[in-house]
């Protein structure tokens, strides 16, 4: 089996490629020395430095608020869009709708950023809103590009879902809104949760679009990181990265355990329902 050893080698290389930079970041965040290449002993001084970096803390707080807000709106809009695409069959303007939903997944960020900025400038010129640019415009921009990801996740979950339960509820006289909130929403809730998390992360991570649509008073965390990286190496960034990695890993493990448990309960319920039918 030469082929399988080739596949295994490539997998080992690929995973190493993905993880070595992250592991190095974590190790060097505890480096006493300012230089990335010189090991000066263990130290947590960069973490302490991070706590006193007011500019970075302010930017992180702004980024977190924008990410939470835009993820929430984008989940609502993305779920509606996913429903429309998965369940409504053909409707007028479906092709255009489908195009507008999938295009932001691949659109280069510089184009999205530029076009949204020019929209905001034109709007301000004609209707006087938004006045200047800042948290509002960044949030709107982030909703627009993250809702596409939510829509795709929700749509694929809906497509693979058994429609018979919804049909049964309809036969029993439930109204569409009730069916949605009592049956569909709980079933697709894992998709909605992962959509929210994805939208949150994408928003938290976005540099290019935010740079275009932000005003001078609103600097997000990626903008601070980008400018300090360009100015030179700051080990504080390593510390920040380690904190992010730790938070994300914990969050994903907790969410994974939680979702696995939900799935097990759901399977048990289904088995019991099937058993009682038999």
């Amino acid at each position, binding site marked *: *089996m030469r082929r399988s050893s080739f*596949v295994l080698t*490539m*997998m080992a290389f*690929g995973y190493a*490629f*993905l*993880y*070595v*930079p*992250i592991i*190095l970041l974590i190790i*060097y965040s505890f480096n006493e020395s300012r230089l*990335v*290449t010189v090991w000066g002993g263990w130290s947590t001084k960069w973490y302490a430095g991070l706590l006193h970096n007011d500019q970075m803390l302010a930017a992180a707080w702004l980024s977190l608020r924008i990410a939470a807000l835009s993820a929430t709106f984008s989940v609502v*809009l*993305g779920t*509606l*869009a996913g429903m*429309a695409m998965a369940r*409504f069959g053909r*409707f007028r303007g479906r092709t255009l*709708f*489908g*195009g507008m*939903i*999938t295009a932001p*997944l*691949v*659109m*280069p*960020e510089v*184009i999205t950023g*530029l*076009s949204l900025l*020019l*929209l905001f400038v*034109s709007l301000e010129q004609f209707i006087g809103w938004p006045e200047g640019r800042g948290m509002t415009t960044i949030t709107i921009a982030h909703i*627009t590009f993250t809702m596409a990801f939510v*829509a795709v996740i929700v*749509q*694929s979950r809906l*497509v*693979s879902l058994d429609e018979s339960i919804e049909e049964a509820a309809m036969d029993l006289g439930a109204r*569409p*809104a009730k069916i949605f909130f009592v049956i569909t929403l709980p079933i697709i809730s894992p998709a909605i949760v992962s959509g929210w998390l994805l939208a949150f*992360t994408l928003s*938290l*991570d976005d*540099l*290019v679009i935010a*740079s*275009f649509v932000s005003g001078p008073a609103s600097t997000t965390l*990626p903008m601070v*990181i980008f400018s300090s*990286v360009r100015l030179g*190496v700051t080990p504080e*960034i390593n510390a920040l*990265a380690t904190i*992010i990695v730790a938070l994300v890993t914990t969050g994903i493990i907790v969410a994974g355990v939680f979702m696995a448990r939900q799935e097990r309960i759901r399977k048990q319920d289904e088995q019991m329902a099937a058993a009682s039918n038999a």
Partner: protein
Amino acid sequence: MGRGLVIMVPYVWLLLFFLIPFAIVLKISFSEAAIAIPPYTALIEWAEETYLTIRLNFGSYLFLLTDSLYAVAYLNSLKIAFVSTVLCLLLGYPMAYGIAKAPQAWRGPLLMLIILPFWTSFLIRVYAWIGILKQEGLLNNFLLWLGVIDAPLQILYTDTSIYIGIVYSYLPFMILPLYATLEKLDDTLLEAAADLGAKPFTAFLSVTLPLSVPGIVAGSLLVFIPAVGEFVIPSLLGGPNTLMIGAVLWNEFFANRDWPVASAVAIALLLFLVVPIMLFQYYQGRQQEVARQ
């Protein structure tokens, strides 16, 4: 009524914040730069209160054609995106294949490990490569220690480091759609091929590979299209000689403050990407049809 509302709300949002902005970019690409707020001239004017005049100014587009900087940047972006896509495919295909063929219980964790880096800051992960690739960096030290090279290589600030950065950042986008198609493959087809005397490699070439074409196309487009307009990776890892169109647009806008030329650059970039984007939508639609069945 409820149905109409479900469609209307996201539809109107996307029209307002996705489609109309492109119309505005198109409009501004035809106007002239001016020292004003906003810094371009009006396209439509009421001359003497009676005549509606529309002045289309092709100057920005002519400028793109006459200054070779733009042509070089466009071609260079296409080249870098293409090579990165091929590299992503060469590394991503065996990985996706390996995950799809792994025991059922392993697939979830292996996939999770592909997605996990994606949840941590992209910017910081690209920044990590600076410490690895620079002259006195870890890679050069490692290669010197191995004795493979005698003197440190200049990797950072070259095209090579851009390729490394793009492949590293976009690899999950290649693996996920590939995995989705490879995982659904019917193993009985391979057994049938084996029964008919095909060697594993022949069976792979004549059964697995053709059936995974939708995944290959979807993954390649997910990497290629955003890579053409990439700004962050070349500006952190690329050298002064590497010109990519995303950075040109950025500079035209932020440094030169020439909004009409920046808009023209964006429109020209979109024109390059129209065919790939339509292909992407076609395959996306087809995958959903398949999933529906």
